[in-house]
């Protein structure tokens, strides 16, 4: 007899940017049964193009809030999922799951990425999660987790879009990057639209300040000010890390955990977010900066250290463990 979670897993991954969708894709691609991802990320098309086997339902990110909430609820109901996996937002990003979850017949699992404690208090999330979820999975022991004290919380290694054995060689990654210089700095411009200019100025400052070092900037669209020859579009950017000596990026979940897993120094800028405390996560980075000048100094320090060791390939990918937890519920 199968477990209660046998059947379709629906991952509720609404949320801006790449983070929620990438984490959901990381889980979906290793699951052994049918999985559907519900997202409103503007990057759903890019992920679908790279992973065409994934079942991705994209809610139009331009929908007014009320209609997006209705659409999310409609999709959850229509999926008839055996297991609903809610990424980050226990009540749904717009609060639309709050009345639906308590009576839902499916197994309910919360993926507990960091949350603003003010939000946790304001919406009494500890009590809501206690009564509305069967399991809480914390994706990484270093991830801040204001609900970690609740019962039924399981902690895994960070969830990554690539496992160690899937990473390309350094040579193959350098070909993707198109670098010939001995050392390479990657600017990971994964943030919001109004943050892209900062990344463009970082790329410019690095090119001007680091002679003989390859500089690349990965972003879905060329950030303003970024020289065209330095820009590339690549998802997942983790495929580039074996060819990189230093990353400059934000302190989002994926950037920080991918760099930490591969042993690539991260020079991070902690951006303000409504729900996510990037400043806490940036504590895992090699250096925290705010200005392009600071970034150049920090990158130069990282590059000046004797011989960067090969990309680490001994890390665990928490999605394997998560699948086992989900299958056992």
């Amino acid at each position, binding site marked *: 007899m199968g477990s209660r979670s046998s059947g379709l897993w629906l991952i509720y991954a*609404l*949320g*801006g*940017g790449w*983070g*929620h969708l990438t984490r959901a894709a990381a889980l979906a691609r290793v699951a052994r049964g049918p999985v559907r991802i519900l997202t*409103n990320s503007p990057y759903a098309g890019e992920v679908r193009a790279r992973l065409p086997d994934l079942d991705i339902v994209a809610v139009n*990110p331009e*929908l*007014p*809030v*009320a209609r*997006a*909430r209705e659409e999310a609820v409609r999709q959850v109901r229509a999926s008839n999922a055996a297991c609903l996996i809610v990424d*980050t937002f226990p*009540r*749904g*990003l*717009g*609060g639309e799951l709050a009345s639906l979850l308590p009576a839902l017949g499916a197994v309910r699992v919360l993926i507990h990425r960091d949350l*603003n404690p*003010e*939000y946790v208090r*304001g*919406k009494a999330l500890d009590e809501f999660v206690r009564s509305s979820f069967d399991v809480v999975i914390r994706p990484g022991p270093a991830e801040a987790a204001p609900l970690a004290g609740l019962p039924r919380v399981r902690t895994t290694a960070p969830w990554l879009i690539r496992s160690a054995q899937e990473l390309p060689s350094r040579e193959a990654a350098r070909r993707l990057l198109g670098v010939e210089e001995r050392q390479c700095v990657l600017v990971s411009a994964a943030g919001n639209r109004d943050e892209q200019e900062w990344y463009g100025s970082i790329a410019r400052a690095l090119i001007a300040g680091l002679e003989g070092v390859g500089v690349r900037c990965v972003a879905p669209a060329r950030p303003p000010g970024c020289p065209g020859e330095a820009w590339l579009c690549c998802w997942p950017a983790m495929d580039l890390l074996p060819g990189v000596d230093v990353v400059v990026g934000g302190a*989002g979940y994926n950037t920080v955990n991918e760099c930490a897993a591969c042993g690539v120094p991260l020079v991070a800028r902690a951006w303000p*977010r*409504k*729900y*996510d405390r990037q400043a806490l996560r940036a504590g895992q980075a090699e250096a925290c900066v705010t200005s392009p000048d600071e970034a150049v100094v920090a990158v130069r320090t990282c590059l000046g250290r004797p011989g960067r060791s090969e990309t680490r390939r001994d890390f665990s990918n928490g999605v394997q463990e998560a699948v086992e937890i989900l299958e056992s519920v």
Partner: protein
Amino acid sequence: MTPSDWTCPRRIGFLFPHPCGRTSPIGCPECQNGQIEDPYAQRTDREGYDNYGDYDSADWPGAAGAAGAPLDFTEADGENLVKPEEEFEGDLTAS
């Protein structure tokens, strides 16, 4: 046309910045029909008024400043005196 569930995300206020919260920019004296991106930052009418009087702490025995700390509030203190009204679950592009 303004969507029916739109609320203005701008900050307004003379001394203490706070969320605007209007449901339409039409006729708004703060952003002038949406023309001013940050009405609080662009307020210039705080300047040119110099008759604030003398609030020397010596005139206010028992007040915090009497122990030696100055009572010189600045505009920047306004930011700290107002608890930002963080609105959750209203922005589906947030993360």
